[in-house]
């Protein structure tokens, strides 16, 4: 079955109370409205999907060919374009999806780009154990051995080493939908969501 999905923007975090008076930390996401720009079908494209746009952009800032496409379909230019599952056959080019599709859905998966952490060592980046701090240990935060000897005689591809951490596509699964505020296009999900404020998030039914 096709899962409902929407493109939005992370706004910030705050807290609300549940029915027992317990504090729930929530992330506020501005979700939609998304405009359908293209319908990909199995016959034509090999798979089915919806290309949607989110967030307005000035015409002069919109790249030429994309702007032309928008003009052809007489849709206002959108900043972010994403593909989502074609969850509803009745959605056509130009139709608008808003956050009310998430009403009644309990949990969502959220895909976003995590915050960049810069160049990080193997302890921070891959969770290596590191060595002993005291008692004459000369091995502290270094990665240690990166391979064996004559066999294989090389370092395996994909060896975990220090390097750039963050700015990865991260999926967080099964976040509870706390509230959907349709008139403000806001959705509250419990817990944290990858990425900084204003980063683009893809919210999918889980």
């Amino acid at each position: 079955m096709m899962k409902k999905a929407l493109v939005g923007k992370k706004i910030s975090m705050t807290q609300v109370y549940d029915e027992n008076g317990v504090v729930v930390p929530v992330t506020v996401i501005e979700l939609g409205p998304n405009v359908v720009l293209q319908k990909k079908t199995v016959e034509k494209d090999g798979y089915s999907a919806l290309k949607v746009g989110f967030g307005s952009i000035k015409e002069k800032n919109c790249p030429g060919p994309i702007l032309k496409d928008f003009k052809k379909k007489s849709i206002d230019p959108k900043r972010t374009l994403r593909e989502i599952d074609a969850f509803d056959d009745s959605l056509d080019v130009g139709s608008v999806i808003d956050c009310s599709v998430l009403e009644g859905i309990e949990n969502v998966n959220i895909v976003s780009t995590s915050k960049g952490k810069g160049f990080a060592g193997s302890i921070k980046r891959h969770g290596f154990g590191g060595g002993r701090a005291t008692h004459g240990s000369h091995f502290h935060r270094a990665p240690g051995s990166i391979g064996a000897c004559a066999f294989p005689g090389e370092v395996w591809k994909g060896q975990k080493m220090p390097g750039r951490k963050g700015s990865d596509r991260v999926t967080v699964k099964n976040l509870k939908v706390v509230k959907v505020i349709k008139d403000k296009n806001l959705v509250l999900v419990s817990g944290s969501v990858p990425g900084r404020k204003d980063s683009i998030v893809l919210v999918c039914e889980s």
Partner: protein
Amino acid sequence: MNVVEELGLELSEVKRELDFEVGDTVRVHYKIIEGTRERIQIYEGAVIAINNKCAGKTFTVRRVSFDVGVERVFPLQSPRIAKVEVVRKSKIRRSKLYFLRERKGKSAKLKERRHISKK
């Protein structure tokens, strides 16, 4: 106050105004759920700090009970708080009264403010 902070306040069931200050002695009527029953417990002490803002605003109440100092942090907007009564106001010169933690007996007393200035 940004959109979210406003929203956080808007979403909480109780919109409690801060009608006490640091240094006040307050009685916090706190709802306690015991199984299916709900009763109200009163916790009385001095407000020694007010922290954070909007939906996350909390206040710390300190009391000395059987010679042991107890501090409880209450979220201001918690629906578990039935009401907050001000018992006594006092003369203070700072916003966080953490110095009370090191004090005992008479030196831990706060001077009462009887004439409350009009704000």
